[in-house]
C-alpha cells in the first residue's frame, strides 16, 4: 500500500494486534466447537453395555471411548436423555424452575457428541447462567500461583503468607529447577499456614514425584494430573485412562485431595486432534475424569489458552468446557491461569464468565507474584493487577475470592513467614536463611529484590531432605520448638485432614477453623434471584471497603 491511513497505523500499534489469530481449519482441529467432522450423537446399549457411541462400534473404540462407555455413561439415564431434543436440554440448563440435580442426572447419560450439541445452542450469557446454577460448591473461591524465577524459598514463604492473607483458598507452586521441588513445597506449606490456617497447597511436578511429596505430608492436594481427548496425545503424555485412574485412587488411599487437568487446544497443540473440534475432545476429557471417580477437574484451556484464544468463539468454548464439568457434578478450577493476551481489555473479558458467574476456583491460579516470577508462563491476572481485581469485585458486587488488605498487615505476615521458615531450615539442618534474606523477603515485590542464595548447596540439601525422609511432622516439631506454635498447629491440622478424608469430597476447601466446605455440606442450590450464593453482609463490607475510597470523615471541609 503506497499511502497508509493514520487511523490504521494507530490501530496496528494497539496491544491486541500483537495477539495471534487464525481462521478456522477444521481438518486439523483448529475449530472451537461444532466442527463439521465432529461425530453425531448416538448410543446403543445391549444387555446393559454400550455397544455403539457417537457413531462408532464398540470393537473400534479407542481407550478413551471404552473408558467413557464403561465407567461414565449411566445406562439407566442414557436412553432417556439421548432421545431428548438438545435445544430443549439447553433451555432446561438456564431454566430456574429445573433444579441443578435434574441437569446433573441427565448429564450422566450423555455422550460427548450429545453434550457438545447441547452447549452449541447456548450463547455466552446462557453459558454463564448455566455456570451460576451448575457449579458444585455454593460458595465460590480462588486459587493462586506462588513461584519465582530463582526458586527462592524465603520469597515463596513470604508470598504464600501474603496470598493466604489476601484470601486464596488454594495455592500452587512449581519449580524452575526440578531438584528444588522439596524446598518449594516446604516453603509454600509454612508460608501459607502463616498467612491463614486451612489453605490447601500443591507443588506441580511429574506425576510420580508429585505423589511422593504428598505422601510425605509436604503438600495437601494435587492437580497436575493431565488427561487428553485423543488416545495418541494421551499416550504421548505417557499415560492411559487406566494409569491415571489408578493414580487417582493412590492419592485417595493416602488421604490426599486431587483433581485432573485438561483443556481445549491441547490436542491440536500436540498435533493429534483427529480433525475434531476442541470442545468435543474436551468433553471426552471431562467424561473420563468423571468415570475415573476423581472429584474435580482443572480446565478452561489452561496452558493451551493461546489456541482457543486464536480461533472464532474460542473463549466461549472455554467457558463451555467449564460448564460441562459442572454439569457432570465435578469441582472445576476454571483456568484464567496463563498469560493470554497483550490486551488488558481482552484478558479482562476472558475472565468475566468465570468471575461474574462464580466457579469453585475462578482462577487456577491467579499469579500472587509478579508476571516475571510466574513459572507457569505468567497468569491472566498477576499481583500487579490485584487492586484492579479488588475494584472489579466492588464494581460488580461479585465475590472473586479475595479481600483488601493493608500494607502493614502484609509486611507483618511476610516477615513472620520468612522467620518461621528460617527456624524450620535451622532445625532441619538445611542451608542457613540469613536475617538479610528475611528482611528482603518482608519488603520484596519479586525475586529481583532478593539476595542470591547458594544454589548448589540448596539443591544438595533438598535432595538430602527427601533421602532422610523428612515429613510434615518434622516441620510441625521444628516450628513448635522455635516458638511458632500456632503455625505448627495449623500444619498439624492440615495433616489431620488426611485421616478423616472429609476434604476428599467434591469441591472441598477449608476455612480458617479447618471446617470443610464442600459440595456435600455447601451444595449449590441456585434457583433464580434471591437463591444460591449471595454475599453476606460481612463479606460485602469487606469487599466494599477499599483503602482508596474517600470517606466524608477524611475530608477537610
Amino acid at each position, binding site marked *: 500500500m503506497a499511502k497508509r491511513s493514520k487511523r490504521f497505523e494507530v490501530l496496528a500499534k494497539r496491544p491486541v494486534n500483537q495477539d495471534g489469530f487464525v481462521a478456522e481449519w477444521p481438518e486439523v482441529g483448529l475449530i472451537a466447537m461444532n466442527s463439521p467432522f465432529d461425530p453425531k450423537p448416538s448410543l446403543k446399549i445391549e444387555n446393559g453395555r454400550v455397544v455403539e457411541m457417537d457413531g462408532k462400534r464398540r470393537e473400534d473404540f479407542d481407550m478413551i471411548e471404552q473408558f467413557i462407555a464403561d465407567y461414565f455413561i449411566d445406562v439407566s439415564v442414557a436412553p432417556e436423555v439421548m432421545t431428548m431434543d438438545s435445544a430443549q436440554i439447553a433451555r432446561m440448563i438456564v431454566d430456574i424452575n429445573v433444579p441443578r440435580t435434574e441437569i*446433573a442426572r441427565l448429564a450422566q447419560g450423555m455422550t460427548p457428541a450429545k453434550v457438545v450439541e447441547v452447549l452449541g445452542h447456548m450463547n455466552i450469557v446462557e453459558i454463564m447462567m448455566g455456570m451460576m446454577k451448575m457449579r458444585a460448591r455454593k460458595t465460590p473461591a480462588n486459587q493462586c500461583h506462588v513461584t519465582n524465577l530463582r526458586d527462592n524459598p524465603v520469597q515463596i514463604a513470604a508470598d504464600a503468607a501474603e496470598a493466604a492473607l489476601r484470601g486464596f483458598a488454594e495455592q500452587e507452586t512449581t519449580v524452575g529447577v526440578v531438584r528444588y521441588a522439596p524446598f518449594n513445597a516446604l516453603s509454600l506449606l509454612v508460608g501459607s499456614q502463616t498467612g491463614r490456617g486451612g489453605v490447601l497447597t500443591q507443588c506441580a511436578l511429574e506425576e510420580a514425584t508429585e505423589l511422593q511429596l504428598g505422601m510425605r505430608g509436604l503438600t495437601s492436594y494435587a492437580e497436575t494430573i493431565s488427561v487428553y481427548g485423543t488416545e495418541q496425545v494421551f499416550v504421548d503424555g505417557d499415560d492411559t485412562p*487406566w494409569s491415571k485412574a489408578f493414580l*487417582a485412587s493412590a492419592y485417595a488411599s493416602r488421604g490426599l485431595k486431587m483433581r485432573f487437568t485438561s483443556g481445549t487446544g491441547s490436542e491440536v497443540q500436540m498435533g493429534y486432534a483427529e480433525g475434531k473440534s476442541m470442545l468435543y475432545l474436551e468433553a471426552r476429557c471431562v467424561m473420563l475424569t*468423571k468415570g475415573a471417580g476423581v472429584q474435580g477437574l482443572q480446565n478452561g484451556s489452561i496452558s493451551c489458552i493461546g489456541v482457543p484464544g486464536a480461533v472464532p468463539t474460542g473463549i466461549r468454548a472455554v467457558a463451555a468446557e467449564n460448564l460441562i464439568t459442572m454439569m457432570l457434578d465435578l469441582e472445576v478450577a476454571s483456568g484464567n491461569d496463563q498469560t493470554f493476551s497483550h490486551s488488558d481489555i481482552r484478558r479482562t473479558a476472558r475472565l468475566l464468565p468465570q468471575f461474574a458467574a462464580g466457579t469453585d476456583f475462578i482462577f487456577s491460579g491467579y499469579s500472587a507474584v509478579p508476571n516475571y516470577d510466574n513459572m507457569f508462563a505468567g497468569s491472566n491476572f498477576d499481583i500487579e493487577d490485584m487492586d484492579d481485581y479488588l475494584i472489579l469485585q466492588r464494581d460488580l458486587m461479585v465475590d472473586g475470592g479475595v479481600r483488601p488488605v493493608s500494607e502493614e498487615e502484609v509486611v507483618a505476615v511476610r516477615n513472620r513467614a520468612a522467620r518461621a521458615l528460617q527456624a524450620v531450615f535451622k532445625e532441619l539442618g538445611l542451608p542457613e536463611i540469613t536475617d538479610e534474606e528475611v528482611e528482603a523477603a518482608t519488603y520484596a515485590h519479586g525475586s529481583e529484590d532478593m539476595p542470591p542464595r547458594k544454589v548448589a548447596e540448596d539443591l544438595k540439601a533438598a535432595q538430602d531432605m527427601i533421602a532422610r525422609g523428612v515429613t510434615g511432622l518434622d516441620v510441625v516439631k521444628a516450628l513448635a520448638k522455635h516458638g511458632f506454635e500456632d503455625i505448627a498447629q495449623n500444619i498439624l491440622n492440615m495433616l*489431620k485432614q488426611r*485421616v478423616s478424608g472429609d476434604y476428599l469430597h*467434591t469441591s472441598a476447601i477449608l476455612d480458617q477453623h479447618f*471446617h470443610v466446605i464442600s459440595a456435600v455440606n455447601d451444595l449449590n442450590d441456585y434457583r433464580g434471584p434471591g437463591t444460591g450464593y449471595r454475599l453476606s453482609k460481612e463479606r460485602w463490607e469487606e469487599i466494599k471497603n477499599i483503602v482508596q475510597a474517600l470517606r466524608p470523615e477524611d475530608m477537610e471541609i
Partner: protein
Amino acid sequence: MDARYIEQLVREVIKQMSNVAGEENTPAASACAQVGKAECDLQPGKDYPLAEKRPELIRTATGKKLEELTIENVLNGRITPQDVRITPDALLMQARIAEACGRKQLAQNFRRAAELTRVPDERILEIYNALRPYRSTRAELLAIADELEQKYGARINAAFVREAADVYERRGRLRTA
C-alpha cells in the same frame, strides 16, 4: 418401574452386600463392626464432615483417635507419620457419603483407595509406572493383578489392572520386547 431399573437395583444390593462382607474380612473394618451396622448408615446431612460430627468413628491407621493428634504428642514422639494416614474404614465411610450424594464413581474411587491403603508407598509408585503405556507386557500386568489380589486383598484393583491388560493388548499399548 421397568425391568432394567429392577435389575440395576438388584445388582446394587448384591454389590453392597459383597462390599460389607469384604469389609468384615479385614481388620480395618473394625469401627463399623464395633458401633453396629445402623451406625454406619451415614447420611451427608447429619454425619458430614465426619471429623466434626462423627469423630468417634475416625481412627488413624494405628488406631489412635483424632483428639490424640496433638502438638504435645508430636513432640514427645507418640505421633509418627503412620498416625497421619487414612484407614480403609474411613475411606469406605466416605464412599457411603459420596454414594448418598449420588456420586457413584467417586464412591468407587474411594473403594479402590481403601484397598490401596494396604500397599506400601514404593510399590504403589511402581504399579502406577507399570500401568503407563509400553511399560509392561501382558504377563507382567497380570502378575501385578495377582499380587494386588493375593497379597493385599485388593480385588477391585486387581480386576481393574486385568482390564487394563486386555485394553492395552487390543490397542497395542503393551511393551513388546
